[in-house]
């Protein structure tokens, strides 16, 4: 029947339009379309490439949503055309929204809202880490996932190719080998004093690399210069890859009453260093007493290929130190040496943390012994063999006297964790049979168990989130919640809550959400969500042009830290959504305060700092990280920044640019600004339509340069007419070429003028609900893996209403999303 209608319609539309439209469209609406739309949007006119006349009455098409939105927002008919009466507009939008809602609902009745989807590679890695207690990098073994709307959790971006399937097998192999080492692996604690550390270094390292810059004070080793990671104070080296906790007792020496910054670094390869992965943390150590600092981090290589070191970046670099004090090779500094220094009393390494978890979960309490070749018996003293040593020849192997029963017992408890719900008897039998079959084929019990676990980790029940249509049960909710907040699987407590049915109650769900947000693993949500919502992940993609002389590694590290700390604060304190646009506080350290030209802040650790009234550094959108991330290397792009604001903050993304539009070609030789070039662009009607929408926020941000600094004039490469060689306000002594003055004024799409960022921010704040709506939508996208359909809008509106009393605080929004049917139904 449906087919007949649309066939008829197709025949009809090009002969008898306008009145003879499909019977699916009420006569009254047809009349309004004919009177107000068709002279620009019929088959022959097709303004902006769109023909309403040719649009089939299949309301699953996105084009109908666009028709609805354009009309509802008053963008169509465009300014200058006859406006339909408000009643007429309502008539069209009411009818259309009804059609759109029922079209979405019909599609969902059978499938649910979120399509069947697999884990992405980020979740795969963290899940296996949590499941098996390993720290092995796994994500790079899997193909990259598609980002949809910036997120890696959307079903549409998570198709499965043959290379995924084969990669999962390889990754599972590696993970199992890592989790079940063939030598006895136990978590250890190693500690040495500064003196012991020094005395263990090779003489060749000491004579020129260390001794001239250090002195001993009892057991304490004091560095008076920075010497680079290899020669500096190191923590004990890890015996094997894994996650470690590292502590050190440190104190500033001869530094008056000022605190001293300690950098905790990790030796990594060059590429990782470019991504600042060598920075584990910074600590500001108060004067006058010993502080114990602690970090927890993954060390992926043993044998000294990766280790942790400590240094005080404020101390002079060794070459400068040698020039100043004279370096007397091989001799340590005198005991009364009075220059500032960093003292380390001891350093300690604990780990690998959770190293026994994998063995425990996969082999339980089964006996593991070295496997000896035929005819050789196991020596009595094998427990005192060095590790890995002999075990490489005689690998530790699990034994069982009742292989079938043991396999079933172990598989059963592992399946519950891997499948994120109690397994069915059929599943247990099936997976136990896989082990048995391998044993029958002649594999050892140990090998057969490994094969069995590999099959589990390659099963669709592990890799995919299987949710039948309708309301989710407690286990599916637990899985979604763990995925949202931890990028991982449920822990025992969440499992227990699911067992008790608590996640189907609003209070139980809320309590678990609160508990999980308080867990260290929630840092994964903060990291990933800021990476993807704001695209902070792209922060280091582009290195600024050399004319930005003030850009250094410390700044590059600090900028995204500010934004993450800011987001964490919003989440912890349930701060209003308006904070995204404006606040009277932010997170600063010494370097950021200098960069922003704010009153000095001491130290490297970021701390919440109040901003003076009128500061242009409140609100997330004017963070240096965001401003840098949204520019090109040598010039700021109002288009990029504007599109970023509209897409990520306001939630009204621009349409993609029409085909074959000439690119803006920057010319940095003269003083012609990007804005002047964009003006030419906006004079082209087809471009103007979208640029009117995108550019204004970008113009408002023009006072912020490529590295997020405040500017009144554009910086250029060289001198010339009208160009001054002037000092940078926040960097005394550094001079740059300054050209034309910045103009940060503009007019929004709906005709509101602004002269600078302050006025623009107040315009944004006029519609707080839109900011909340956008953030709710982004959370829903990330949390549920499905796009926001027309029918979801009502739920989003409900979330916005329900959080109004909390000023749409971030935590309230997150709770409201979790409690909404979008999260609780497939």
């Amino acid at each position, binding site marked *: 029947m449906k087919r007949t209608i649309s066939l008829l319609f197709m025949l009809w539309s090009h002969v008898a339009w306008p009145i003879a439209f499909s019977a699916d469209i009420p006569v009254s609406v047809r009349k309004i379309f004919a009177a107000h739309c068709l002279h620009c949007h019929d088959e022959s006119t097709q303004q902006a490439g769109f023909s309403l006349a040719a649009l089939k009455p299949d309301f699953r098409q996105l084009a109908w949503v666009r028709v609805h939105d354009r009309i509802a927002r008053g963008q169509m008919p465009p300014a200058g055309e006859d406006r339909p009466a408000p009643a007429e507009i309502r008539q069209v939008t009411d009818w259309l929204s009804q059609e759109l809602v029922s079209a979405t609902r019909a599609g969902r009745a059978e499938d649910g809202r979120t399509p069947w989807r697999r884990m992405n590679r980020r979740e795969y890695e963290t899940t296996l880490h949590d499941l098996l207690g390993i720290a092995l990098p796994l994500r790079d073994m899997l193909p990259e996932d598609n980002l949809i709307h910036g997120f890696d959790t959307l079903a549409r971006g998570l198709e*499965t*190719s043959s290379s995924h399937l084969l990669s999962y097998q390889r990754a599972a192999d590696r993970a199992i080998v890592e989790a079940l080492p063939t030598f006895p692996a136990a978590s250890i604690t190693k500690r040495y004093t500064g003196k012991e550390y020094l005395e263990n270094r090779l003489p060749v390292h000491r004579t020129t690399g260390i001794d001239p810059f250090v002195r001993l004070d009892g057991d304490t080793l004091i560095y008076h210069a920075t010497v680079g990671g290899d020669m500096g104070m190191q923590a004990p080296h890890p015996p094997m890859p894994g996650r470690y906790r590292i502590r050190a007792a440190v104190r500033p020496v001869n530094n008056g009453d000022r605190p001293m910054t300690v950098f905790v670094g990790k030796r990594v390869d060059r590429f990782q260093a470019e991504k600042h992965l060598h920075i584990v943390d910074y600590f500001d150590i108060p004067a006058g007493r010993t502080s114990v600092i602690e970090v927890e981090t993954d060390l992926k290589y043993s044998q000294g290929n990766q280790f942790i070191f400590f240094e005080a970046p404020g101390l002079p670099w060794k070459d400068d130190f040698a020039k100043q004090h004279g370096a007397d090779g091989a001799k340590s500094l005198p005991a009364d040496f009075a220059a500032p220094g960093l003292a380390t009393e001891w350093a300690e390494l604990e780990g690998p943390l959770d190293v026994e978890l994998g063995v425990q979960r996969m082999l339980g309490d089964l006996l593991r012994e070295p496997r000896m070749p035929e005819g050789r018996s196991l020596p009595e003293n094998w427990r005192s063999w060095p590790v890995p040593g002999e075990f490489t020849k005689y690998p530790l192997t699990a034994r069982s006297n009742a292989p079938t029963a043991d396999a079933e017992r172990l598989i059963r408890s592992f399946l519950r964790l891997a499948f994120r719900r109690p397994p069915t008897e059929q599943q247990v039998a099936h997976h136990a049979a*896989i082990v048995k079959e391998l044993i029958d084929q002649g594999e050892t019990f140990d090998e057969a168990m490994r094969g069995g676990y590999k099959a589990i980790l390659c099963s669709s029940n592990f890799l995919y989130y299987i949710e039948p249509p309708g309301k989710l049960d407690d286990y599916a909710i637990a899985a979604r919640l763990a995925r949202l907040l931890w990028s991982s699987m449920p822990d025992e407590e969440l499992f227990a809550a699911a067992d008790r049915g608590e996640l189907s109650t609003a209070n139980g769900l809320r309590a678990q959400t609160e508990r999980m947000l308080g867990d260290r693993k929630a840092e994964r949500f903060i990291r990933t969500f800021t990476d993807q919502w704001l695209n902070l992940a792209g922060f280091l993609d582009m*290195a600024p*042009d050399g004319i930005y002389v003030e850009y250094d590694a410390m700044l590059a590290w600090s900028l995204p830290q500010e934004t993450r700390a800011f987001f964490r604060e919003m989440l912890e304190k349930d701060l209003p959504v308006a904070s995204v646009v404006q606040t009277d506080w932010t997170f600063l350290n010494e370097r950021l305060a200098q960069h922003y030209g704010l009153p000095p802040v001491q130290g490297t650790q970021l701390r919440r700092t109040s901003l003076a009234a009128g500061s242009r550094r409140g609100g997330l959108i004017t963070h240096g990280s965001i401003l840098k991330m949204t520019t090109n290397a040598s010039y700021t792009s109002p288009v990029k920044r504007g599109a970023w604001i509209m897409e990520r903050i306001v939630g009204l993304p621009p349409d993609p*640019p029409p085909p*074959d*539009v000439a690119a803006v070609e*920057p010319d940095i030789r003269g003083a012609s600004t990007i804005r002047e070039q964009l003006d030419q662009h906006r004079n082209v009607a087809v471009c103007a339509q979208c640029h009117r929408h995108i550019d204004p926020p970008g113009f408002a941000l023009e006072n912020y340069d490529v590295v997020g600094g405040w500017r009144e004039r554009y910086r250029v490469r060289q001198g010339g007419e009208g160009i001054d060689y002037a000092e940078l306000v926040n960097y005394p002594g550094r001079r740059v070429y300054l050209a034309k003055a910045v103009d940060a004024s503009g007019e929004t799409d709906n005709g509101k003028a602004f002269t600078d960022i302050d006025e623009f921010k107040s315009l944004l704040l006029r519609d707080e609900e839109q900011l909340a709506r956008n953030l709710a939508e982004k959370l829903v996208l990330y949390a549920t893996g499905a796009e926001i359909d027309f029918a979801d809008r009502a739920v989003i509106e409900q979330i916005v209403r329900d959080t109004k009393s909390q000023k749409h605080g971030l935590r309230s929004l997150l709770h409201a999303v979790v409690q909404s049917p979008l999260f609780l139904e497939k």
Partner: protein
Amino acid sequence: MHILNGHTLDRRTVLRAGAAALSLPLLDAMIPSVCGQQSRDRAASLQPRRMVLIHRPLGTYHPHLVPSATGPNYETTRFLKPLEQHRGKFTLFSGMGHPGYPNDHGTEPAIFTGVPGLNVRDVHNSISLDQIAARHVAGQTRLPYLLLGATWSQSLSWTEKGVPIPHEGNPASLYRRMFVEGTPEEVRREMRRLRQGKSILDNLRGELKSLQSRLGPGDRERIEVLTASIRDAEQLLAQEQAWSTKPRPVPAMTEEEIGANPANWIAAQDKWLALMHAALQTDSTRVIVLACNEHNKDNVPDLELHHHDASHHGKDPNKVEQLCQYEDREFATCARFLDKLAGTTENGSSLLDTTQVLFTSNLGDASAHSSSNLPVLLAGGGFGHQGHVSYGTGIDKPLCNLYVRMLQQFGIEADRFGSSDGIVGEV
């Protein structure tokens, strides 16, 4: 298409005449009716067809690439100079691009897919050129295809369903896979891995069957995609298994050479290209994609700016010159690769003649982030090369028209690909 000894047969004519089902025993099917027994014998020694796609980001500086004249007798340019000895064996196309692509670095993942209407913020990709070619020669070599180097986006190679296929970044491990025999223990483990792999896929297929009844039509469709992937994976495993017992060939380069740490990106790129040459020369694969990422200035004495920085030169002469020095070297490494292919003969013809090499970028002029007028250089492959073919500076000729031509040259009956609206007839 050029058959040996200059017997030229316009395959498109045959296609138009309605010859159907020309898959691998292509010539067996075609030659008896067209050319007779003698040609059939010659065709038995016909060379395999190979395809190499090389992508570099950041476009080009056109004034130093594109000759002012068209046709075979152009006056060479700064970038083309190192390729001079291969004149007649390559064609530079100007005025090509993927129509309608936004001016953005983000077009990279679609350079070899040419999928119409690309939205760089929300990429819906489809199958890339290399994957169609690889499918065509599946099973004939140890490795179905090689995707090498590091990309800026997820991948340059995509499946039909828009799933990116990862690139390999480690030349040494690839070398071992292709050329180094494993120890008996490694071979045993490998056989076990393949056996387990197959049963894990069986297992997965079984699970999906029982799952289907619980899911709606949309999800069932997704499961069909997965089922197709399972089939592909099984084929890959079967191919590995079939080749696992065959002795590995000995290439012209040693394991030490491949393991050495390159001094800078030029050496690193040369190494990839040498490995690609070794793979082709030993017929270990016939389809290769190489992604050259942006370069840095490290250890190259005369470069003071990073590649990305130099490419956004904004017409600053100093930056332009820096960019050109990067490009000089890129074209020189490309030339060295062609030298190697041309210098290797196989059954009487050079490897260059059996290997189509495409060297291109997703940007035209990176300073404007422009995605039109891309640098497109096609070498070897037995095409009737034309020196410089220009489509003018107006609206781009679809690059996919060239891709269609390349697929045909590869022996695939294709008349459209990606956003093609025809076929390049000049070569």
